[in-house]
């Protein structure tokens, strides 16, 4: 572990540096992935570009009813404790509060979790369900990328070598929304998801018709993915157990899990069905129970 350490104080300064060094510079936010990659997996880099000193990236801001923006340095614990997030996006709270343990939640950032692009990233399924939009910045300017276009494969994203994730925008959701994130692991903490599922249900005024359904899955494919065929089964329908079961089966059919040390392909496919069913019922109960609170 030998490298030059750059510590910019502003985003423009950081972008200049990233533009100059490109792939030679690894970005450091919370360090909970990069430090482990360097120490345990032998990752070498000439330059570490620490974003920690850039105060302007450390925020969670309500956008006047249009949604909420997370700065790239917002930690998992800051997001899980934020009153704006707790009020609107309980699924994101559940995901952030299930990342490893408190020490890691206090260091690790949601932005870093996305950029690390693990198929198991806990923050990814809720943000996919929420149709979050990522702002990627470079000295060339900024571009906005919908999260479902961001991931390319394990540890691969559309980020160019001169770009830095600046912020994550979460559009405001309809009032009668219920959502949850369920994570399957062998233990409650310090765990990488065997699978993770985020489901959101939007109801119409009568509580019967599902106006929108969104499902996203982690650890079931090379990237976190939406289960769009499963969603389609529930969208516009009146709720019943058979449809929920059909949806869960469709979600499992859309998954392309591998067998690894955490679980076999077959086990994951079974568990997608089980968790999708549970998450859909929980999301539905929340949507019925309260409009905004989830």
């Amino acid at each position, binding site marked *: 572990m030998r490298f030059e350490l750059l510590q910019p104080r502003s985003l423009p300064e950081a972008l200049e540096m990233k533009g100059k060094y490109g792939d030679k510079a690894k970005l450091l936010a919370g360090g909970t992935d990069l430090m482990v990659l360097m120490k345990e997996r032998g990752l070498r880099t000439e330059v570490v570009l620490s974003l920690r000193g850039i105060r302007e990236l450390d925020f969670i801001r309500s956008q006047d009813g249009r949604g909420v923006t997370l700065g790239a340095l917002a930690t998992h614990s800051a997001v899980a404790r934020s009153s704006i997030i707790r009020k609107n996006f309980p699924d994101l709270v559940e995901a952030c509060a299930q990342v490893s343990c408190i020490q890691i939640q206090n260091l690790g950032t949601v932005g870093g979790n996305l950029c690390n692009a693990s198929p198991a990233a806990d923050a990814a399924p809720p943000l996919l369900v929420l149709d979050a939009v990522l702002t990627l910045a470079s000295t060339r300017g900024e571009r906005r990328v919908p999260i479902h276009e961001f991931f390319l494969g394990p540890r691969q994203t559309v980020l160019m070598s001169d770009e830095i994730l600046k912020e994550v925008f979460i559009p405001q959701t309809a009032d009668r929304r219920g959502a949850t994130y369920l994570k399957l692991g062998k233990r409650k*903490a310090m765990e990488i998801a065997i699978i993770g599922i985020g489901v959101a249900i939007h109801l119409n005024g009568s509580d019967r018709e599902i106006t929108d359904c969104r499902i996203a899955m982690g650890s079931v494919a090379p990237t976190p993915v939406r289960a769009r065929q499963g969603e389609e089964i529930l969208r516009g329908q009146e709720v019943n157990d058979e449809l929920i079961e059909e949806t869960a089966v469709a979600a499992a059919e859309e998954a392309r899990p591998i067998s690894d040390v955490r679980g076999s392909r077959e086990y994951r496919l079974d568990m997608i069905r089980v968790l999708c069913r549970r998450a859909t019922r929980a999301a539905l109960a929340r949507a019925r129970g309260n409009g905004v609170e989830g």
Partner: protein
Amino acid sequence: MKIPVTLKVNGETYELAIAPHRTLLDVLREEIQLTGTKKGCDVGDCGACTVLLDGKPVNSCLILAATVQNSEILTIEGLAKNGKLHPLQKAFLKDGAVQCGFCTPGVLMSLKALVDTNPSPTLDDVKTAMAGNLCRCTGYTKMFKAVETATRSL
């Protein structure tokens, strides 16, 4: 190549010259000789290296020391005040919550952060707060009891 780094640890300011790759854990132990903070896994899995960074528990093995120069760092050595043990430390002694002792400093820092923000934690709160601290003697039960003892006296 070494760079100048200023750290605020337990209320003291330390002016150091260190290589940029060195972690807060290694600098605490090897440069400042505060060896109460332990090195277990060194990759953020065990919690033995837990210190408080601006009041929040973090794994000091995952932090580059040079990146936390504007923060207040509290280690186990800073937990006692004016020669008086913190109520959690007293309770750990009273209830026999220390076995081999290797995880104890990290556990105490996690629990200190908990009771600072939540003076009457439930058992679930305590378990969540300690989830990132592994005790390989598996002596958790007495630690839970000690937290109860301590929070009664807080």
